[in-house]
C-alpha cells in the first residue's frame, strides 16, 4: 500500500515508434499517484520517470488541459476519454481510480486516422471534411449588421449545442464502424439551424458527406457509441438531421 491517499498503478500502454513501425503494448508500474492529479498529469509523472531513466517518454496529444482544444484523446480501458461521461481525458481525475488498478491506454484506432507515434494519431481527415464544406462562404467586409436578422432562441441554442464539438474524434474511435457522422452532422446542423447557413445548405451537406465517405470513414448503424463517448454531449439527433438534409439535397440535385 502506498503513502496515505497516494496510489500505485499498473499501466499497459501502446508504444509505437512512428507510422512505419509496428507497435505493441508495454507494461509500466507507476507509484505515488495523487488522486487530485488529472489523468494526463499521471502520464506526465510516468514520463518524468522514463526520461530520468533515459527512455523515450510516451507521446500523447494534449494542449489546453481544460477540455476545449480537442487535442487530447486516449482509449482508457476501452473507453474513449475514459469512464466519466461528457469529460475529456484531460479533465478526468485520478480520484476515479483506486490503488492497485490496472489501466490500459491505447490510441484512437480508425483507418482514416493512423497512429503517428505511441498515442498520437493523425486527425487531418477532419480538416479535409471541413475543407469540403464546413463554412459559410462570406468574405470579410461584406457582413450586414449583426442584429439585422433575428434568430429564434430555440434554434440558436440548438445550433450552439452542435457547435460545441471540439473535433477530438472520440466519436470515430468509439464507433464500431469508425464512422465520423456525429462530427460531420454537428457541423452540418450548426449551419443548417441558422439563416446564415441556409443559402449553401444543400451543397454543404452533399460535399461534406461525400468527402467523409471518400476518406474511408464507416457508415452509421445506430450503435450510438459516439454520443455516449462524446465529451461535449453532442446529441445523436444531429445525425438524423444530417440524413434529412442529405436526402432533401440529393432529391433536389436530381
Amino acid at each position: 500500500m502506498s503513502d496515505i491517499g497516494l496510489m500505485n498503478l499498473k499501466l499497459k500502454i501502446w508504444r509505437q515508434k512512428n507510422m512505419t513501425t509496428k507497435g505493441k503494448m508495454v507494461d509500466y508500474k507507476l507509484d505515488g499517484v495523487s488522486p487530485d492529479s488529472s489523468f494526463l498529469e499521471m502520464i506526465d509523472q510516468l514520463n518524468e520517470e522514463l526520461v530520468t531513466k533515459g527512455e523515450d517518454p510516451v507521446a500523447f496529444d494534449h494542449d489546453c488541459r481544460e477540455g476545449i482544444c480537442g487535442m487530447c484523446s486516449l482509449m482508457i480501458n476501452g473507453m474513449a476519454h475514459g469512464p466519466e461521461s461528457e469529460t475529456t481525458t484531460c479533465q478526468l481525475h485520478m480520484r476515479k481510480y483506486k490503488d492497485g488498478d490496472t489501466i490500459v491506454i491505447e490510441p484512437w484506432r480508425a483507418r482514416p486516422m493512423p497512429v503517428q507515434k505511441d498515442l498520437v494519431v493523425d486527425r487531418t481527415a477532419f480538416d479535409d471534411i471541413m475543407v469540403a464544406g464546413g463554412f459559410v462562404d462570406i468574405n470579410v467586409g461584406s457582413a450586414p449588421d449583426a442584429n439585422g436578422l433575428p434568430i429564434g432562441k430555440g434554434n440558436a441554442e440548438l445550433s450552439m449545442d452542435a457547435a460545441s464539438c471540439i473535433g477530438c474524434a472520440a466519436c470515430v474511435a468509439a464507433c464500431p464502424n469508425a464512422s465520423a457522422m456525429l462530427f460531420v452532422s454537428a457541423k452540418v446542423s450548426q449551419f443548417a439551424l441558422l439563416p446564415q447557413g441556409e443559402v449553401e445548405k444543400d451543397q454543404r451537406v452533399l460535399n461534406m458527406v461525400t468527402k467523409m465517405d471518400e476518406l474511408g470513414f464507416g457508415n452509421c448503424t445506430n450503435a450510438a457509441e459516439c454520443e455516449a463517448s462524446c465529451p461535449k454531449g453532442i446529441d445523436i439527433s444531429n445525425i438524423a438531421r444530417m440524413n434529412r438534409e442529405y436526402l432533401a439535397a440529393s432529391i433536389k440535385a436530381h
Partner: protein
Amino acid sequence: MSVKYLDGKVPEGPLKDKWNKHKFDSKLVNPSNKRKFKVLIVGTGLGGGAAAATLSELGYEVESFTISDSARRAHSIAAQGGINAAKNYPNDGDSIWRLFYDTIKGGDYRSREANVYRLAEVSNNIIDQCVAQGVPFAREYGGVLSNRSFGGAQVSRTFYARGQTGQQLLLGAYSAMMKQVNKGKLKIHTRMEMLDVVIVDGVARGIICRNLITGKISRHWGDAVILASGGYGNVYYLSTNAMASNASAAWRAHKKGAYFANPCFTQIHPTCIPVHGANQSKLTLMSESLRNDGRVWVPKNKDEKRAPNDIPEEDRDYYLERIYPSFGNLVPRDVASRNAKNQCDVGKGVGNTKLAVYLDFRDAIKRDGREAIEAKYGNLFEMYERINDENPYIVPMKIYPAVHYTMGGLWVDYNLESNLKGLFVLGEANFSDHGANRLGASALMQGLADGYFVIPYTIGRHFAEGVSKVDTNHPAFDEAEKTSKEKLDKLLNIQGTKTVDYFHKKLGQVMWDNVGMARNEQGLRKAIEEIPKIREEFWKDVKVTGDFDNLNMELEKANRVADFLEIGELMARDALMRPESCGGHFRDESQTDENEAKRDDENYTHVAAWEFTGVGKEPIRNIEELKFENVKLTQRSYK
C-alpha cells in the same frame, strides 16, 4: 550603444479620423498584383487565423503554420467569457469613445491612444462578421444578441457564446480558413514549428521550420512574415496557457533584432482554480463573467474553522464590495487579483493551502433561480466540479489568481509592423493595445481586429513600397537553418541528469516569487541573478531523450524552455527598470495611501522596447514616448 527613441507612426489628425485617413493614405496593391506577394503567417489563433483567411480572400498567396495537428486547436479556443464591442445594443450608454476610454484607463495609460481607438472602432465590424460566419452567439427570446458585463466597464458590451466564446470565434476564423483552402488560395502547414525568422538586409524574408512528426527542417520564403504566435505566460510554468503555448517564435525574432516591448506587463487572472499539488501541470481559469453573479469573500476571522456555508453573514468580508462600492466584484483583473493576494497574505485565505478565496453564488441562485445560473455558467460549474470534486451550486467556489495573459510582446508601430521591415506581429504576440492591464473580453476583440480589419490594410503599404525577391538559397537561410539545427542537436547531446520540466518548474518558481503579482527591487535583482544560473545549469545538465527524426515532444519542450530561460530574465530587468506601479505591474515601492498602484507619469509614460545584444548581456532599453492628446491621465479609481 545609445538609446533609440521609436516612432509609433501614428497618423496625424483628430483621433476619430486617424484610421480612415490612414487607410485612404495607404497605397493600394491592385487585385492582379496581390497574387504576386506571398505572406507567411505563424500561428492560427484568432489573430493569425483571421489574417490568413482575410489576406487570402484579398488575393495574396498565403501560407499558415501551426504547431498543432489542426488550425482549430490554437489557444484562443480556451477563452471563455466573451468579446467586447461598442454596439450599444442594450442602450446603456456605450459608444466607441467609451470602449476606447475604458480600455485606455483599464490599461492604466500605458498603451497607444490611436491603436486603442482603432480597436474600439472596428469592434462592431467583428461582431457583424462573426454572426455572418455562423457563430452561434447567445440570443434573447426576441432573436437579438445578448450582452453581459465584464470587469472594468459599467455597460454591458460583452457578446458571448455560453462559456465557449473563444472556441466559437476561433472556429469561425478556422471555417474561414477552410473556405480559403477549399478555393486553393491558402496552404496550411500543421505540426510545423518555426525555429527562426530569416532577415535579409533588415527585412523579414522567410522562416525556418521543423516538421514535428518527421523532424525535417524546411525553408520558406515570403514577401512578408506575420507572427501571431501568442504570449509568453508559460514562463511561469504554471499558468492558464495551454501546455504548448510558447514564446519561441517571438523570442527568436527578438534575437534577430525585433524589439520586445514592456515584457514585465503580465496579467494575473483573479478567478482560477487553486493549485492542488507538486504534480500540477497547469492552472484552469474560471471565466471572469462569473463575477457578474458570484460574490467574492473571505472569513473575517483568520482562524475560521467552519465550512463556508456555516459562516454567517456577519462573519464574512465581501472585500471587493466593501473596498470598491461602485465596481464591486467587477473591478479590473489586476485589482481583483491583488486584493485576493492581500487577503491571503494576512492569513484570511481559505482551503487546505490557505491560498484561495471564495466565489459564492448562493445569493444569485436565491435571486434568479438555479436554472438561470445554470444557463449562464453551466459548463463552467461542471468543469469546476470535475477538477475540485465540489458542487459549486451548493459549496462556494475556491479561486486564486494565476498567470493568464501577457500584455507585453514584440514592439509594433501603428501598422502592426515591428522595427524589422516586413515583420508584422498580431494578437497577444504584440504589445500594442492593452497597456499595463488588459480588460476582460478584449483579447478576442484585439486578435480578430488585428487579423480581419487592420493587417489587410497595413500590409499593403509594405508591398506597395516594393519588395525585392529573395529565394531560399540566400546565405541568410543557410545561416538560420544551421544555427537552428545546431541548437537542437546540442539539446539532444547534453544527456545530463535532469528533465526539462525540472528546469521549467525552477524558473517558474523564481518568476512567480519575484516577478509575480507584486514586485520589488530586491526580488527583481534576485531573479536577475538566479535565472542565468538556472539557464547555465540547463545547458549543462538537461536530459532530452528520443531522436531528431521522429516526433519528439521532449525536444520540442526543451527548445521552448531554453527560450523561456532567456525571456524570464528580460521580464525581470524590465520590471526593475520600471519603478512605478501601473496595471498588472505592481511595485511595492510605488503605492498610493490606499495601497493602489501609483504611476509615475512624469518619468514613465513610455513604452520600453528592449533591444537584444546577446544572451547574458545587458540589453538596450529603447523608448517610445506615449502621448495622450485625448484623455486625461488620472489615478485609476474603481471605488
